[in-house]
């Protein structure tokens, strides 16, 4: 063990490196694409709302980045006439697959 060993416990560069690697892996995947989800959600709601009455709060959109394909999952609750009185609703699911990853 050399003299440097005495200082080794104070090394912060490896921590910096690891923190950056984790952070950037996340940021690279989401930067520029977080907007895409918001835009998709808004446009999809508009299209559906043109034809059926939906509750804007009951729309869920999820993007799952898998390898080799990513899936876009859109979950829209469409209340039936009866459901307007009672609680609950019919679920209309759409799962178009997005190419790429």
């Amino acid at each position, binding site marked *: 063990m050399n003299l440097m060993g005495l*200082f080794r416990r104070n090394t912060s*560069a490896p921590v910096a*490196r690891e923190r950056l690697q984790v952070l950037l892996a996340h940021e690279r995947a989401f930067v520029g694409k977080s907007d895409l989800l918001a835009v998709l959600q808004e446009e999809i709601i508009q299209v559906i709302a043109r034809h059926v009455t939906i509750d804007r709060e009951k729309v869920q959109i999820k993007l799952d980045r898998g390898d080799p394909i990513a899936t876009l999952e859109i979950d829209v609750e469409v209340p039936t006439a009866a459901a307007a009185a009672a609680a609950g609703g019919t679920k209309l699911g759409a799962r178009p697959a997005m190419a790429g990853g």
Partner: protein
Amino acid sequence: MTTVLVVTSGKGGVGKTTSAAALSAALAQSGQNVVVVDFDVGLRNLDLVMGAQRRVVFDLINVVQGDAKLAQALIRDKRIDTLSLLPASQTRDKDALSAEGVERVIDQLREKFDWVVCDSPAGIERGATLAMRHADAAIVVTNPEVSSVRDSDRIIGLLDSKTARAEKGERIDKHLLLTRYDPVRAARGEMLKTEDVLEILSIPLLGIIPESELVLRSSNLGSPVTIGNPNSPPARAYFEAARRLRGETLVVSVPAQRRSLVGRLFGRRAVA
């Protein structure tokens, strides 16, 4: 063929202007015709760093808006006659830069110079995106420090998506310039190493500029380090980076100041 080169970083204070001035002066000293353009509208400083602050009459905005001819706004360096400066406006803001106007000015500069070096403002707003817009190549100036590396990563993303070349599906050459590097602290594990930054950012290394008191001294004096102290370690690093930009293959090293033990103890530089 002219190369339009943007010097950018995202983060402020990492040495964009210092590096743009030092590299431009180094390129110009090798006989190339170089113009360095300050895109930091409203916060111009390249004129001051290059010692030309009292010679500014017209600026980039005047040329972009057609109020002055390009030749009237260009300031030729008094020390190196192949080096010119196109200053930014100090009184206007970035909204005065139009995309078409910038494109026209860059096209005109391409006809006159071998290198058009665009000194980008910090940030990712209009000034920075216009500075990189027409670039063929980019120098990403990074300090071995977490916030600088993160911002550089973001800028690399923009270079790959928002530049004219990227939009045409063409490549833009990106180079990493690591500044304010302290090899002793890096070896002790107190500072990110060159390899760490390279691995994280994955762009080729143009040069490593060692931390040096001479860099502050040169901006104090308005004389880029490659003009005022051409044999100093930071100047040597900039000269080597300039040669790599011109296509030479050189092994990257960290130029060091030779210090004797006595010099080290008393904090004085030994005779090099």
